[in-house]
C-alpha cells in the first residue's frame, strides 16, 4: 500500500476557545492524539507514541498533522477583514466518511428537500448552470456563479432571495463557502466546514463562520448553522456506499453535480483517498 498522501495535511482538532491545560483526547486518521494548552500558551499536540505533532491556531481552531506539512495552513484572507463576526459553531460528530461530509457541503441540489423552507423550497428546485474549475496555481477546487432561490438564506435575510455562492476546496477535508451577504452587498459571507478525520467512516465536523452581521445575536447564528448541519447529519449517516467512490461506475452524476465531480477528480489526482473507495464494487 502506498503512503497516505493526506498524512501531511492540516486538520482541525479542537476549538481554540476551549483549549485548556487539562487537554482533550481525540484522534486523527485512527491515531489517538492529545490536544492541550502548553505552559507558553501555545497549542501542544502529541501523537499516539508521545511524539510532538505540528500545531497552529487559526480560524478559531487548533490545527495539527500526523506528518510533515509541506505548506502552511491555507489562507482565508476574509478572516482578517475588520468588521466581521467570527463564530465558533462547535463540533458535531458524524458516522460517515470525512470526504462525504465535504462533498455534501458542496451540493446545492438537496437544499429544497433537506433544508426545506430555509435554504430551498419546492418548486424552486432547479440548479442553474455554474462554473467549476481546478485552479492549478492554487491547487484548489472552485465553483463560481452558483445561484439558487432561497426562502431564508441567512439569519440576516428577510424573505426569499436568489443567493449567489462560490465554493472553494483548499484541502481534502475543508471547504469554504462564500455567500451573498444581505446587509453588505459587494462582500461575501464566509462559512466554512472544517472536517477532522477520526477514521475512514467517522469524522468530527467543525463549522465556522466569518460574517458581516451586526444585528443577530451570536447564539442565533450558531443555532441557524447547527440546524442546517444536523439536518444533513442523518442523510450523511445513511449514504451508500459509505466511502466516497472515486472511480466512475458506482454513481451517475448529473450537471448539478459538477463540483462533486471536480472534487473527486482532484482527490484522485493527489491520492487523497482516506475515506474513499477506489475501485467500484
Amino acid at each position, binding site marked *: 500500500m502506498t503512503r497516505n498522501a493526506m498524512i501531511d495535511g492540516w486538520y482541525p482538532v479542537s*476549538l481554540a*476557545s*476551549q483549549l485548556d491545560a487539562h487537554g482533550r483526547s481525540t484522534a486523527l486518521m485512527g491515531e489517538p492524539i492529545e490536544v492541550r494548552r502548553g505552559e507558553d500558551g501555545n497549542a501542544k499536540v502529541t501523537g499516539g507514541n508521545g511524539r510532538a505533532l505540528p500545531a497552529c491556531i487559526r480560524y478559531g481552531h487548533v490545527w495539527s498533522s500526523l506528518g510533515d506539512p509541506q505548506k502552511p495552513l491555507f489562507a482565508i484572507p476574509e478572516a482578517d477583514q475588520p468588521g466581521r463576526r467570527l463564530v*465558533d*459553531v*462547535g*463540533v*458535531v*460528530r458524524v*458516522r460517515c466518511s470525512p470526504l462525504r461530509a465535504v462533498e455534501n457541503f458542496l451540493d446545492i441540489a438537496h437544499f429544497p*428537500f*433537506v433544508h*426545506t423552507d430555509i435554504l430551498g423550497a*419546492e418548486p424552486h428546485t432547479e440548479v442553474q448552470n455554474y462554473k467549476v474549475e481546478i485552479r492549478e496555481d492554487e491547487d484548489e477546487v472552485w465553483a463560481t456563479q452558483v445561484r439558487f432561490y432561497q426562502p431564508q438564506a441567512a439569519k440576516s435575510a428577510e424573505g426569499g432571495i436568489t443567493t449567489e455562492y462560490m465554493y472553494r476546496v483548499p484541502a481534502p477535508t475543508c471547504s469554504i463557502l462564500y455567500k451573498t451577504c444581505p446587509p453588505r452587498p459587494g462582500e461575501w459571507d464566509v462559512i466554512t466546514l472544517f472536517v477532522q478525520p477520526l477514521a475512514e467512516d467517522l469524522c*468530527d465536523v467543525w463549522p465556522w463562520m466569518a460574517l458581516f452581521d451586526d444585528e443577530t*445575536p*451570536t*447564539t*442565533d447564528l*450558531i*443555532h441557524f448553522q*447547527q*440546524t*442546517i448541519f*444536523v*439536518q444533513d*447529519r*442523518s442523510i450523511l*449517516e445513511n449514504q451508500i456506499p459509505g466511502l466516497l467512490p472515486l472511480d466512475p461506475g458506482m454513481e451517475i452524476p448529473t450537471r448539478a453535480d459538477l463540483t462533486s465531480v471536480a472534487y473527486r477528480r482532484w482527490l484522485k489526482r493527489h491520492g487523497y483517498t482516506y475515506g474513499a473507495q477506489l475501485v467500484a464494487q
Partner: protein
Amino acid sequence: MKLYDYVLSPSCYKARLMAALAGVKLDIRPVDFHPGAEHRGPELMALNPAGSIPILEDGDLVLTESSAMLVYLAAQAAPQWLGSDTAGEAARVQQWLSFSHRLTASLGAARLHEMLLRPGNIDALQGQGTAALRELEAGLVEQHIRGQRFLALDRPTVADIACFPYVALAPDGGVSLDPYPAIRLWSRAIRGLDGFIEMPGIHRLHELKPEPVPELGET
C-alpha cells in the same frame, strides 16, 4: 410565555411542538447549549438549579420539567390533549409521561454522546434505549388491538408528545428504528397532525403534499 430553548434539544422541541399543536405562541429565548454551555452559567442556574433546559416562564410560574410544560400548554389552550377523566385512561397518560424520562436518559444520552461528544457508556445507553423502544412497541401494538392509534387513547395526548422526540431521533444515537413497525406507524401519525412542526433530524412528511396527477396514457 418564554421558552429557554436549544434548537437541537428534543426536550425543548417537546415544548415547541406542543405549543404549535395547541396554537400557543412562545417567546423563544435561544440558549447557547453547545458549544457555549450557557445553561450552566449563572443566569440560567439561578432560574433552574438543575442546570437543564428547557425552562418555561409564564409570569411567576417557572417550569423546568418538560412533561409539566406539556400539561401546562395543553391545559391553557387545548385541554383535549390532557386525555380523559376515566381512571384507566388518565393513569395511562401518566404512565407514559413518566416513562418518557427513560427515553431521555437512554436514547437522549446516546444521541448526545454520538453527536456532541458528551461522556457516557454508549453500549449501556444503547442497550437501555433498545429495551425502552421494545416496551413502547409492545404498548403501541396493544393499543392497536384495542383499536387505538396513539399511546393512551385513540387521539393524541401529551403522552405522545412526551415520548415522540427521543424515539424519532433514536438513529442519531446509533439505535435503529427498523425493527419497530408500530413505532414507525405512530411516528407517521404524529408527523401528519395539523400544526406539526419539525426539528433537525425529524423531517416533515413530504408525501402529505397533493399526489401528482398521472398523465393519460401513462403505463
